[in-house]
């Protein structure tokens, strides 16, 4: 009996020791697990710290980016305003350009129309030629008049001679012949003066005619230049 008890007690003791050992192993295992857990917690804490630092850095960056975005938004708004202003200016410039092109076209047309003045100058030219022909005609008539006057002078001289030959009977005739000679001399003077006037008239008529003709060419050439410039300007605007 005693041995049985002892055996039981021994068995119990062995079982207890085994159980203790098992528990001890479990405790040890748990202690190791706990250590591992602590290490993992420490690692995770460290990782968490790093992540937190990263998050903080990211937040700073996000804040900086937000500031930049805000600045860019403001700049974009400014640019939009400038673009809008430029668009308005462009529209008004385009309108002005079209207006200029239209006016350049009008100037070119007007210059082309005014070049028709050449016809007016031609008309003056013809009239001046006609005037010069009349002057020539007057010269011819004046020469004829001078010829007649010279003839009259000769006739009056002959009459005076004949009157002198007739003596007392020819006295009255001599007075008439003398009067005729005096009239012929005055006619001759008048004819010379008239001839000089005609020469003066020739010069002033010619000078005036040429001034009109040359002035007309000057105006026509200037209008051609204006027309060419206006057309060039119009083409550049289109």
């Amino acid at each position, binding site marked *: 009996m005693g041995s049985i008890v002892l055996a039981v007690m021994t068995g119990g003791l062995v079982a207890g020791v085994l159980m203790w050992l098992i528990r001890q192993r479990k405790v040890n295992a748990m202690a190791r697990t706990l250590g591992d857990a602590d290490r993992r917690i420490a690692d995770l804490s460290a990782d968490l710290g790093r992540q937190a630092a990263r998050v903080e850095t990211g937040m700073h960056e996000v804040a900086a980016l937000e500031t930049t975005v805000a600045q860019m938004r403001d700049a974009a708004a400014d640019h939009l305003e400038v673009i809008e202003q430029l668009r308005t200016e462009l529209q008004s410039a385009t309108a002005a350009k079209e207006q200029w092109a239209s006016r350049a076209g009008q100037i070119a047309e007007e210059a082309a129309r005014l070049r028709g003045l050449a016809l007016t100058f031609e008309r003056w030219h013809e009239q001046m030629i006609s005037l010069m022909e009349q002057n020539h005609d007057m010269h011819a008539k004046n020469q004829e008049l001078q010829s007649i006057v010279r003839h009259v002078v000769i006739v009056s001289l002959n009459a005076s001679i004949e009157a002198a030959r007739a003596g007392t009977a020819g006295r009255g005739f001599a007075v008439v012949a003398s009067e005729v000679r005096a009239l012929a001399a005055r006619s001759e003077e008048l004819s010379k003066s008239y001839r000089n006037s005609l020469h003066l008239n020739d010069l002033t008529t*010619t000078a005036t005619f040429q001034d009109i003709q040359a002035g007309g060419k*000057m105006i026509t*050439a200037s209008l051609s230049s204006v027309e060419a410039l206006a057309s060039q300007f119009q083409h550049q605007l289109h």
Partner: protein
Amino acid sequence: MIRSNAQDSFERIFRKAARTRLTRQPEDTCHISTAAEAGTLNGEDALILTISSIAFRLLLVLRFDDSDATRAYFTGEGTGRSFEEARLEIGNLCCGALNQELLQVFPDLGMSTPYVVSARCLPYLHVLKPGYVAAYAVTINDTVRVDATVCVCAHAPLDFVADVSDGVESGGELELF
């Protein structure tokens, strides 16, 4: 009023035009002297041409001596043209040369066609109230004689300096009219 610079320029321009356009060959001698009064030449006619600008007009009066030497020189041999035609052409060329030089200074110019008047008209040039009159006697090859008068009437003060080069130019182009 035509200032001395302008008067000097007109003179230089005329002398160049006379040297280059009144002579038919480049080797021909051309003597140009100032003449107080023209009128020692034979012939009844005078040729007048006008250059007009906004501020002035210039009259070029040419008298060609009606001598055999002058006739033969300007009509040339075998050309078949008359002395009258030759005078008009030479006068036109000479005035065209003046016009060409003046265009360097005055952009707006026009030139008339030549017109023949009696030489007895010339004493009345003063009636045009010119601001500048210069008379020249041109002698080519010692025998050919042409009298020229440059008469400028200005309606505003005239002052310019023409840059007249002395280089001999090639044969002139006909001034179209």
